[in-house]
C-alpha cells in the first residue's frame, strides 16, 4: 500500500468529511462573528459545552434534533454573554473570549461530574445514523463516501452556500459586513451596530455549539473530557486561512480533515518506524504552512477587534 492507495480509498474521504464537519460549523460560526467585527475566542469552550449539553439532553431522553437545537441555544447564550461584554461594554475581546472558554468548558465538566458522579465508563447514547439520498448512494465512488455521513455533515455543507448568500445577497449580510468594516458607517445609515454585532455573535456561537454537539451525537456516542481538544483554535486559524470567505472556510476545513485522515493511515503504513507524535503534528504543521501562504494577502475586516462605543470620539 502506498500513498496513492490511501487517496483512492473511500474510507479515507469519508473520514475526511467526518473530521471536517465540526470544523466547518466552528469556522463558519467564527467567521460570522469576525465579519461583524468581533473576535470570539470563546469558541473552544462553546464547542465543549455544546458537545456536553447536546449529549446530556439526549441522554436525558430528548430526541437527537432537539438535542442539537438545545445545544445551539446554549451556545447562543454564551454568545450573548460574550456580546454584552465586548460590544456595549467594549471590553477586550481577547480577554473576554478566553474567559468564556474557561467558563464554558469548566461548566461543562462540572455539570457532567455533578450529574454523573460515579460512572467509570462514559454512558452512551444512540447517535445519528448515516444517511444519504438514494441517488447519491448510487454514484460510483461518491456513494460509499456519502453513505458513511450523517445528516449533520450534510447540514454543514448546506450552510456554506446559505451563509454565502446571506452575507453577500441580503440586506442583513451587508449590514453585518459593514459593522465589521466600519461601524460608524453602519450607525450613520441608521443601523443598530450593537444589535447586529450581538446578533452575529449569538448566531455564530450557536453554530460553534452545534459543531461541538456533532462530536458527541454523531462522531462518537458519549462525552469525554478534553474531547474538543483544540478544534476551536483550529477554527480560528481556518477563518484567517479562508480570508473570511465561507467557501474557502469549507476548503480549509476539508484540507485539515484530509491531513488528519491521511496521517492516521500513514501511521499504520509506516508501523513503528517513526514516532507517532510526528504524524499527529502533520495536520497542524500543514495548517500553519497554509496559513502563512494564504493569510499574507488576506483582506481582513477593517474594524475587527475594535470596540465601537456610541457617542465617543
Amino acid at each position, binding site marked *: 500500500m502506498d500513498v496513492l492507495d490511501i487517496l483512492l480509498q473511500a474510507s479515507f474521504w469519508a473520514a475526511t468529511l467526518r473530521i471536517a464537519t465540526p470544523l466547518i460549523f466552528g469556522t463558519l460560526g467564527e467567521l460570522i462573528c469576525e465579519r461583524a467585527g468581533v473576535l470570539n475566542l470563546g469558541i473552544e469552550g462553546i464547542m465543549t459545552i455544546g458537545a456536553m449539553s447536546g449529549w446530556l439532553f439526549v441522554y436525558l431522553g430528548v430526541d437527537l434534533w432537539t438535542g442539537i437545537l438545545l445545544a445551539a441555544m446554549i451556545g447562543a447564550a454564551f454568545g450573548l454573554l460574550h456580546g454584552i461584554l465586548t460590544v456595549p461594554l467594549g471590553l477586550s475581546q481577547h480577554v473576554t473570549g478566553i474567559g468564556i472558554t474557561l467558563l464554558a468548558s469548566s461548566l461543562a465538566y462540572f455539570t457532567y461530574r455533578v450529574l454523573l458522579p460515579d460512572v467509570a465508563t462514559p454512558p452512551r447514547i444512540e447517535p445519528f445514523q448515516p444517511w444519504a439520498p438514494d441517488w447519491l448512494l448510487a454514484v460510483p465512488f461518491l456513494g460509499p463516501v456519502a453513505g458513511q455521513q450523517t445528516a449533520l455533515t450534510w447540514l454543514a455543507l448546506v450552510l456554506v452556500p446559505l451563509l454565502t448568500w446571506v452575507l453577500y445577497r441580503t440586506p442583513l449580510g451587508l449590514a453585518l459586513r459593514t459593522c465589521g468594516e466600519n461601524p460608524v458607517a453602519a450607525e450613520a445609515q441608521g443601523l443598530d451596530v450593537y444589535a447586529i454585532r450581538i446578533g452575529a455573535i449569538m448566531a455564530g456561537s450557536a453554530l460553534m455549539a452545534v459543531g461541538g454537539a456533532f462530536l458527541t451525537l454523531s462522531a462518537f456516542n458519549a462525552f469525554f473530557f478534553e474531547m474538543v481538544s483544540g478544534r476551536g483554535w483550529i477554527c480560528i486559524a481556518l477563518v484567517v486561512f479562508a480570508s473570511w470567505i465561507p467557501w474557502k472556510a469549507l476548503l480549509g476545513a476539508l484540507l485539515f480533515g484530509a491531513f488528519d485522515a491521511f496521517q492516521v493511515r500513514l501511521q499504520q503504513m509506516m508501523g513503528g518506524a517513526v514516532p507517532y507524535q510526528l504524524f499527529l503534528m502533520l495536520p497542524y504543521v500543514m495548517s500553519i504552512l497554509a496559513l502563512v501562504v494564504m493569510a499574507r494577502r488576506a483582506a481582513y475586516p477593517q474594524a475587527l477587534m475594535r470596540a465601537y462605543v456610541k*457617542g465617543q470620539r
Partner: protein
Amino acid sequence: MTAPGQEPPLLRLRGITKRFGSLVANDAIDLDLAQGEILALLGENGAGKTTLMSILFGHYVADAGTIEVMGADGAPQPLPPGSARAALAAGIGMVHQHFTLAMNHSVLDNVILGTERLWSWRQDLAAARAKLAALIETTGLAVPMDARVGSLSIGEQQRVELLKALYRSARVLILDEPTAVLTPQQSALLFTTLRRLAEGGLGIIFISHKLEEVLSLARRVAVLRHGRKVLEVAATGTDKARLAHAMVDRPVELPKAEPQPVGAPALELEGVHVAPAAGVEPLVDVDLTLHAGEIVGIAGVSGNGQRSLAGLVAGTLLPDRGRLRLAGAAWPQGGPKALIAEGVGRIPEDRHRQGVVGDMTIWENLALEGYDAPACRRFGLLDLASFRRRAQALRKRYDIRGGGSETPARLLSGGNMQKLILARVLERGPRLILAAQPTRGLDIGALAEVHRHLLEARARGAAILLISEDLDELMQLADRVAVLYRGRLGPARPRAEIELARLGLEMAGQGPAGADAA
C-alpha cells in the same frame, strides 16, 4: 410663531445644550433653517459645531433643548433624540467631517446600506441601481457605482457621501467641513452642486473654516464661540474680517512673508526615486534644493507622493535611488533620531497619530524629542521637575490652551495640538523644518498662529519644506512653489511668477509637472 407670508422653517433647534464633563460644548443654541437655504456655521476649533450637528443627527443626546423638523405635511414634528435612524427618517442627511464609508464595499453597497428591510431574503439590486443612476444623472455627482470606495479619490468619496443622503430623499443636508480635503476645482464643483440642490428646495447647513467660500456660498452665517451662538447675519451684510473677529473674539491678522535673502543649501534631493509598494506612494526622479531662510511649498493633491516626500525628510523612509543631503553634508544615518539630533524638525501630517502620543500628558509630549539631553538629567535620572517647568513656559509662549501640563494630549483641539507640536519642534532651533499640511482643519486664529511661528523660524534662518493642499497658504508663506503630481515634482518657481489658476490645473495633472507623467 410664523409671520404671514413667511415660510415655516424646515428645521428648528431650540436651547440645545451639551456638556462633556465640565466642558459646555453647546450652550443654549437656537438655530433655524428654511427650505432652499444655505446656512454656514462657523467657529474656532472646539467651538462645538460638530457636536451640534451630531446632536441633530442623533449621534449625541443633548442635555437640554428640542429639535423640530417639518414633516411631510408641513407641520413641525419633534425629533426623538439619540437616534440616527429617526434623523434619517425625518429627512436629515449628514456628510461627516470624517467620512463614514465602508472602504472595502462598493459605492452601491454604501449607498443602499440600511435603506432596505433588514430581514429579507434578497436585495432588489436592479431597482437600487436604477434609482442611483437616475440620481447621479440629475445631480451630476458622477461616481462609478461598482467601484470599491477605497479606490476612489477623496473628491469622489465625498460624492458618495452626498449620494447616500440624497438617495434617502434628504430634505436637510449637513456638511461638516466638506472642503477641508478638496482641491479648489473640486470645491467649485461641489458648490455648483449644492447651489442647484438648494434651488430644488433642500435646506443645507455648511461648516467650514474657509471664510471666502462661506461668503460666496451661504445666504446666512451663524458663528459659534465656546459653544454659544454669538452672531447670526445675512451673508451679504458681512465680511471676512467681521466673521473672523466674531469667531475668535479678537481681530485676526494673517502674517505675510517678507522677502529675505537666502543662505546655503539646507536640503538637497538629487534624482530621488521611491518605488511603489503597499502603502508607499512612489516618487520619480525628484530634484529639489532648499536653502536656509527659505520656504519651499509643495503643492498637490494628497496621495501624489507627499507622504513619501515627508517620510524621506522625516527619516522614516529611505530612497531606492538617488541621494539626499543635509546642509551640504551626507544624509545622517540612523533614522529619525539621528535627524532630530542634526537639527531636523518635523511637523507630521497626521497630528493625532504621528504628532503626539494621545494618552501621554502635555508635558510628556513636549519632552519627547529632547528628554535624553544631559541637561535633562539629575544624578543620572530624568529631571521631571525641569520638564514640567519647561512645559509651563512653553504652554505660555505658544499659547497652548485647553488644559494644564498634566492633561492628556488627545483631549486638545486640533489647533492646540498643532501648537504643542510646533513648540516641541521650534524650541530646538531646527535648521530644517518639515511642515506637512500644518494647518489642515485649523480655524483662522490657529492658522494665523501657525503661520506666524513658521515665518519666525524662517527669519531665524531655518529652511522650511511646506507640503500643503491649501493654495492660499502656499501663496502666503512660500518663497517658491513646486507641484507634485503622480510622484513627479515640477520645478520650484518663485511665488511672483505663479498664477493661482495655473497651479490648480497643474495639481490636477494638466500642466508641465504632469505632462510627461500622463
